[in-house]
């Protein structure tokens, strides 16, 4: 089935964006006589080709850098265990989960967004109260959750940011994942929705972020874990920050001079603090605050506004140092120590050779000590 609806949304779901590729893969499966697992729309190999690309049938590569991880994820989804993608923010976990569910079920929309306010109803089902009062507990009155729909249709369900939910809410999933059914007591004794083949769950989680909850051991046992790592290519990251910064600045763009070298300094400092290792290979202390690419963009943006409204429109390492202190030192006093360590060692050393780092050093010594 080819989607005819025009692409008028800001961001249509993956199954619509890549509709032609999915059709091509289905055709290829049929032509090869590939074995398609029950409930899946594509064979496991075609799912892999969808994500890692297959030039021969015009399928683009969408995820880079870790082919074995994709293999493991597909194999996990074939089995009884759920798939848990963990990693820092900005590591394409959600994208991977969207691509997997689009390829396996042809639907990436069965998504529960985990927040501190997520309740059991969001995971199980709730009621249309007008109908409930009028007709009693009927199927018409029931409002199924994405998990309910996934179970009954045999599709992959996505649970984003699962660790942001309270642990007791997370644990609702334990019985669903182990028994592969959902009891609906309101429909009478023994009423249940049994999972059809093709049902599974992809959860994404930040485990290092603040404001997340620990997962129970029981829940962990029902998932296979995959760690997705951040962008390791510094030049690529510099380009990304530059692009995002210029789109965030919008019309201010012309009023601010933001030298590329300063973005490089910022990205370098972020990457070093995040990975705990400098470009020269010396280990440094990583702060607990997430030093993601997205945070780097925030710092760059704040520094740009700082220069625009409080300075002469020229972003210097001084603004970066000031904003970095504000953004990176959110609430953990240990982080201040770690940043001081970074300044005392890495920055002090570089300040001897490089005038930009020297400016950064003197500004950082002023603000952070």
């Amino acid at each position, binding site marked *: 089935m080819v989607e005819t609806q025009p692409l008028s949304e800001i961001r249509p779901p993956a199954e619509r964006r890549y509709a032609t590729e999915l059709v091509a893969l289905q055709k290829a499966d049929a032509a090869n006589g590939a074995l398609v697992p029950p409930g899946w729309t594509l064979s496991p190999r075609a799912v892999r080709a969808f994500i890692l690309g297959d030039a021969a049938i015009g399928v683009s590569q969408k995820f880079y850098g870790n082919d074995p991880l994709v293999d493991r994820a597909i194999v996990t989804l074939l089995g009884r265990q759920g798939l848990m993608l963990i990693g820092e923010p900005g590591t394409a976990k959600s994208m991977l989960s969207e691509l997997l569910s689009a390829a396996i079920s042809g639907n990436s929309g069965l998504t529960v967004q985990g927040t501190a306010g997520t309740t059991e109803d969001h995971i199980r089902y709730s009621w249309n109260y007008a109908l409930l009062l009028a007709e009693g507990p009927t199927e018409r009155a029931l409002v199924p959750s994405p998990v309910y729909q996934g179970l009954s249709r045999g599709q992959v369900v996505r649970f984003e940011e699962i660790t942001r939910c309270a642990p007791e809410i997370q644990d609702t999933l334990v019985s669903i994942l182990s028994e592969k059914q959902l009891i609906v007591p309101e429909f009478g004794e023994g009423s249940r929705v049994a999972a059809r083949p093709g049902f599974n769950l992809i959860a994404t989680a930040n485990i290092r972020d603040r404001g997340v909850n620990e997962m129970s051991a029981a829940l962990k046992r029902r998932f296979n*874990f995959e760690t997705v790592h951040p962008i390791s290519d510094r030049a690529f990251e510099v380009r990304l920050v530059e692009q995002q910064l210029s789109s965030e600045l919008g019309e201010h763009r012309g009023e601010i001079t933001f030298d590329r070298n300063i973005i490089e300094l910022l990205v370098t400092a972020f990457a070093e603090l995040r990975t705990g290792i400098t470009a020269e290979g010396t280990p440094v202390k990583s702060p607990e605050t997430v030093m993601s690419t997205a945070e780097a963009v925030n710092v760059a943006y704040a520094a740009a506004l700082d220069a625009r409204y409080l300075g002469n429109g020229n972003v210097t390492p001084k603004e970066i140092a000031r904003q970095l202190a504000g953004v990176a030192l959110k609430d953990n006093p240990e982080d201040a120590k770690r940043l001081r360590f970074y300044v005392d060692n890495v920055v002090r050393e570089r300040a001897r050779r490089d005038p930009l780092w020297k400016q950064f050093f003197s500004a950082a010594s002023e603000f952070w000590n």
Partner: protein
Amino acid sequence: MTAPIRIDAGVPKFFAELPPRLERAILMLRQLEAEGVHFAPIRHHSPTCAQAVASLIAEAAPTTVLIEGPEEYTSLIGELARPETIPPVAILSTAGDSVAHNGFFPLAEFSPEWVALRAGVLANAKVAFIDESWSERKTDPSDDPQQQQLTRTIQAERYLAHSRVLHELARREHCRDHDELWDQLFELRDLVDFPASRTLLDEVFVWSALARLEYETPVLVSEGSITREARMAARIQEYREDAKGPIVVVTGAFHTLALVEALTMAAEGAIVREAVPSGGYQKPADGTGVAWLIRFDNARLDSLSGYGAGMPSPGYYGRVWTAPTGFDPTRDVLLDVAHAVRAANTTDVLGIADVTSAMTSATRLAELRGRPKIGRTDVLDAIRSSFTKGEADSSPALRDALQLVFVGNKLGQVPPDTAAPPVVAEARARAIQAKLTVSDSTTRSASLDLRRKPAHRSPSRYLSLMEFLGTGFATRVGGPDLISGRGLGRLFEDWSYAWTPLVEARLIELSSFGTTLNEIALARIIDVEQSLGQSANSRSASIAVNLLAQAATIGLSEHLPRLTSLVDDVLDADPSLASVVQAALRLLGLWNSKDELEFEDTGSLSQLLDHSVGSIAFLVPSLATTEEARDDEAAELIVELRSLMLRLSEQAGISAGPIERELERVRVDARTSPSVHGALVALAALDGKMEDSQLSDLLLSRLGAGADVERSVRFLVGFMRAAPDLLVRDPIVFTAIEDGVGGLTSDAFLSYLPDLRRAFSWLKPLETAALAERIAGGRAIELTMVRTDLSASDLQEGIALQRALSAELSSDGLAEWAGGDQ
């Protein structure tokens, strides 16, 4: 004689079209086979290749088996064939004077060379090594000089890891590296019969030949491949002329193309043929004295593979090799990993359900990747999926279990009467060179003046080395010791030494760790180095600096840069302030002895010192939360820190500004533990950083009326530990402490008396006398010292009892009984 030539057999399925040169080469292979020369192109340590070689030898029934390997090894075949020789073993080559000329030729039980050798001997065939002798080889300039000594291997296979074609092929097959690609294409096949083996060998040939075609001739010439191939081709030709039956030639597949082209007179083989000297080669050299059979272990086998020599994970492939035909070892591997994790007794618990799930994952991964069986990376991936609950690599128990199962701890054996390696001779020669007497076993002594006599430095290094290796030859009896940090001011080093038969026995034992004394020492140092990286807790900066000092003392100068960078890394990772301060003090010791040690790179040493300042500054805030039980340690550390700061600027010209800043921060922090606070205040007073009035206010508030007694006493103890003489010299301090102690209630005074005593014990006897005089104010007091077996708590109990008793008596109106002055 011409035999029918089949071209269909051996054209690899994974390449639709072969370059014409390779198509021709396969025809030549067939032609040579028809003439009785069977090539077995192999990858080192590949079980499947080993199986194919065994099958080829059984099929071809050769009378001669020729193996790639320095030709002088032929004289060791008798030793290798003995039943007492059990792999992993290695032949080590020690040609030349330079250590860089040593190399290992390791053999696992599943190495094709080993299988060929044993099968050949069993079949009564003539078995010989045919490669250029090790002493004639060029040193490969691409070798990393730091790794050279320990890991130089004679079976280099770097070309596979560097090949662009193979890299592209791996990418296309979704394999992470060429090892996984190799598994996918070759290792996982079942060699049901001889044709299957022949096909495999042909495909290995094509696979390696593709990598070879990327090389330009000048590169092959400069790295020495062409001269080696010329030698091998010539030797094969010689054996061919003498042979009474078929010949099997086992070589790394990279060389097979050149050998085949040279032997069949193909145009491309001219370069190899022309490299043969006009008069041909002399008879192969004898290996006696230059090649030694030694025991080897899986860990070193695996570490060699890291440098491009054969397959990784000998523990895993060993299992594959010993598993019965048709038996998949995956389940056992998974069970063993789970068992090892459980045995580590951590919180990671792996049950049968996890093993089952991993088994299913491994099977499905192999299916998804289109493999006929479960491969090494499938097992590793399944373990990663099913055995980790949380971030990848977060479980040390799992990491250790993987090391145990995939690398293994197998140790090989050699016959007990095998000739001893040359370390013994080296040790003697170096002793004689150092003008030490080794002609008898009498104990002698030597006194060395390192600072003024540069000629004494080399003997000192040798003696330190022998002591470090635990040979029992030398013992340091006095003088500066940079490793323990004792006696650093002394000028003379005193040694006693004796060359006994036990020293020789110990050296032979040690020779399995390396070919020269320096190499063995290095192996030990690397051992400690590796344990330093194992876990966060073991990353001790003082141990790392000790290693550096050790290496410098025994003269491993070429490894100092690596150790320096190790110290650099560990300085940041060490969570213990005490250890980092120790490390910095040792570094300073090294800095001061840099001339005696002939330390060349003083720049990096001063950089390390500079770096330690930052690391210490980072850890100083942890002092603030010192618990009472560690008060003394903390106070002592502060004293050491102060001396370090002074010496850093005096001796090395390095500013300790960041440390000073952090200490200041801790000092003014109201939450700082009292004893640390006391020590810091004392030092600040000593350094004149506090005004008199400030000091007196602070002491009054800390010790005066109303202060928490326990905290005051801890403060006082810290203060006295750091600067006891202030009490005598500074009237403000004297008054404050006298008032403070005088203001204690007698109960409090008695219960804290032991602590107070300890606080005052830091005074020197003269200072105690001066203090006593001042307190007594000229009044004559006679002090008697009585020694008893009573402990402090006995005394305290006695005093309490005495006081309770007298209180009881006086309440009964019987005070005079107690002898109290009522």
